[in-house]
C-alpha cells in the first residue's frame, strides 16, 4: 500500500523553483531515501511531507490525507527528525520529551514512562535532567530521534539523520532505524552518505536541481549503471570531480 503519494509536485520560493514537477510513491514499511547534492530540493520535499509548508502546485497525500486538507491529522501520526537540531534549550532532556508529547495531547502519566524508555533506547538514560546545552552533538541527535518517536509514529521523516555524527553514533542511529523498520515503521530520509543509503534504503530517489533523476533500489542502480552507489550518484548528478 502506498502510504505517501506525490504527483506533479512543484515548490517555488518566489521566482526560484526548488522542486520541479516530481512524482513518487512510498510504500508502507519501506525505507525510502532521497539522495542529491546540497540544494537539490530534498529538505523542501521533507518539509512538504511533514506539512511545514504547502506545495505550490501538485498533489501530496500522506497516509491517504491531502497535506493541504488536514495537516494536524497527518502530523499526529508522523515523527520528524529535522536537519538542524531544534531541541528546546529552555527545558531539560526529559522535559523536552514530555512537553513535546503534550503537543500530541499525550498526558504526562503516559508520556513520562514512555520518555524514560525512549531515553534508554537512545542511550541517554544518564542525562535525564541534563541541560540541552551540555549535550554533545551526537547526544542531541539521539535526543532528536527519541523525541521524534514520542507519538509512536507510522512514518518517520529524517532529514540528514547522521550528518556530523562520529562512526559509533552513526552506527547506533542505523541500528535504531533498522530496528524501527523491522517494526513496520515507514522511514523517509535524506542523506549525503551513500553507504548509509545502501545499508538502510529499500529504494532511493536521486535528485538534482529540483528534479528526480531516477527511483530504484540501490542494488538495481548498481547493476544498471555499474560500480558502487556513489559511482551511480556521481554519474547521474553529472558533476565530475577534479582529478
Amino acid at each position, binding site marked *: 500500500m502506498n502510504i505517501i503519494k506525490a504527483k506533479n509536485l512543484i515548490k517555488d520560493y518566489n521566482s526560484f523553483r526548488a522542486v520541479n514537477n516530481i512524482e513518487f510513491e512510498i510504500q508502507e514499511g519501506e525505507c525510502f531515501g532521497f539522495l542529491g547534492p546540497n540544494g537539490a530540493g530534498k529538505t523542501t520535499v521533507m518539509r512538504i511531507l511533514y506539512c511545514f509548508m504547502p506545495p505550490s502546485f501538485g498533489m501530496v497525500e500522506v497516509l491517504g490525507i491531502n497535506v493541504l486538507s488536514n495537516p494536524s491529522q497527518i502530523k499526529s501520526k508522523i515523527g520528524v527528525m529535522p536537519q538542524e537540531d531544534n531541541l528546546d534549550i*529552555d527545558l531539560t532532556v526529559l522535559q523536552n520529551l514530555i512537553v513535546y508529547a503534550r503537543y500530541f495531547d499525550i498526558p504526562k502519566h503516559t508520556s513520562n514512562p514512555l520518555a524514560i524508555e525512549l531515553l534508554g533506547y537512545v542511550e541517554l538514560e544518564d542525562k535525564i535532567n541534563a541541560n540541552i546545552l551540555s549535550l554533545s552533538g551526537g547526544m542531541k541527535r539521539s535526543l532528536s530521534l527519541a523525541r521524534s518517536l514520542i507519538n509512536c509514529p507510522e512514518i518517520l521523516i529524517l532529514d540528514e539523520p547522521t550528518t556530523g555524527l562520529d562512526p559509533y553514533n552513526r552506527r547506533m542511529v542505523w541500528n535504531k532505524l533498522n530496528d524501527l523498520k523491522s517494526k513496520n515503521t515507514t522511514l523517509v530520509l535524506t542523506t549525503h552518505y551513500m553507504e548509509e543509503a545502501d545499508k538502510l534504503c529499500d529504494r532511493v530517489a536521486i535528485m538534482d536541481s529540483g528534479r528526480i533523476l531516477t527511483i530504484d533500489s540501490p542494488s538495481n542502480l548498481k547493476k544498471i549503471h555499474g560500480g558502487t552507489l556513489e559511482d551511480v550518484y556521481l554519474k547521474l548528478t553529472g558533476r565530475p570531480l577534479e582529478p
Partner: protein
Amino acid sequence: MNLKRALRVWQRHFTVYKKLYRYSIVLNFVEPALYIIALGLGLGAFIKEINGIPYVNFIAPGFIASSSMFAATYECTYGTYIRMTFQKTFDAILSTPVNLQDLVAGELIWGATKSMFYGTIIIIAITLFRLVDSPFIVLLIPILFISGLLFAQLSIICAAIVPGIDSFNYYYTLFMTPMFLFSGIFFPLDPLPKIITYIAYFTPLYHLANVCRSLSAGHVSGSLMSIAWLSAAVLLLSPIPFKLMRKRIIK
C-alpha cells in the same frame, strides 16, 4: 485555530517560566518601586498634588499599566523572536499537530497572561503601600488580560516584520517610550498642545492608564470608554498577527 492546541503552546511557556520566575519576579517590583520612590516621593515633594490627589497616589496606578505593557511587549517582541529564529522552537512545535494559527494564538495568550500577572503584582504592591483608594481595583485584573492581548498583538506584528533583532530598537524608541511618557501616567496631558492629546488618545497605554487610575479611585464609569477602546482595538487587530506570521514563517 484550535484553542486546545494553542494552550499547549501556552503550557510550554508556563513550564519554562516556572523555572525562572523566582529570579525575575523581584525585578518586576524593583523598576516600578524605583519610579515611585524617585518620582512619587522625590518629585512629589515639589509637586505635592495633581487634581487634588497627592502626587505619589496620582502616579502609582499608572505603573500597573506600564508594567503590564512592558511584560507583554518584552515577551512577544524579543521572546517570540528568539523562539522563532535563534532557538527554532517554532520549527519544532510546527512539526507536531500544532499548526501556525495555534502557535500564534498560544504566543498571544501567553503574552496576555504574563501582562495580567505582572500588572497584578503591582496592584498588590501599591495596595500594600496604601496607594489605592478603592476595592474596585480588582476589576482591573481581567482588563489587564485584554490590554495584554493588545500589547502582545502589536509586539507579534513587530516580530513578524523586523529584519533582525536589533530592529526592535525602533519599536521601543519610536513607539514604546513616547507612549510611556505621554500616556498620562506622570502628568495630565491637558496643558500640552492639543495635537499631543489627540495622538495619545490613539495609543493603548493612554487608555489603560486611565482605566487603572479610574478603578483605583473607584470611578468605574470613568473607565468604561477606555475599556471599550481597548477591546475594540483587540478585535480590529486580531487577524493581523496571524497573517503576518504566516507570511514570515511559511515560505
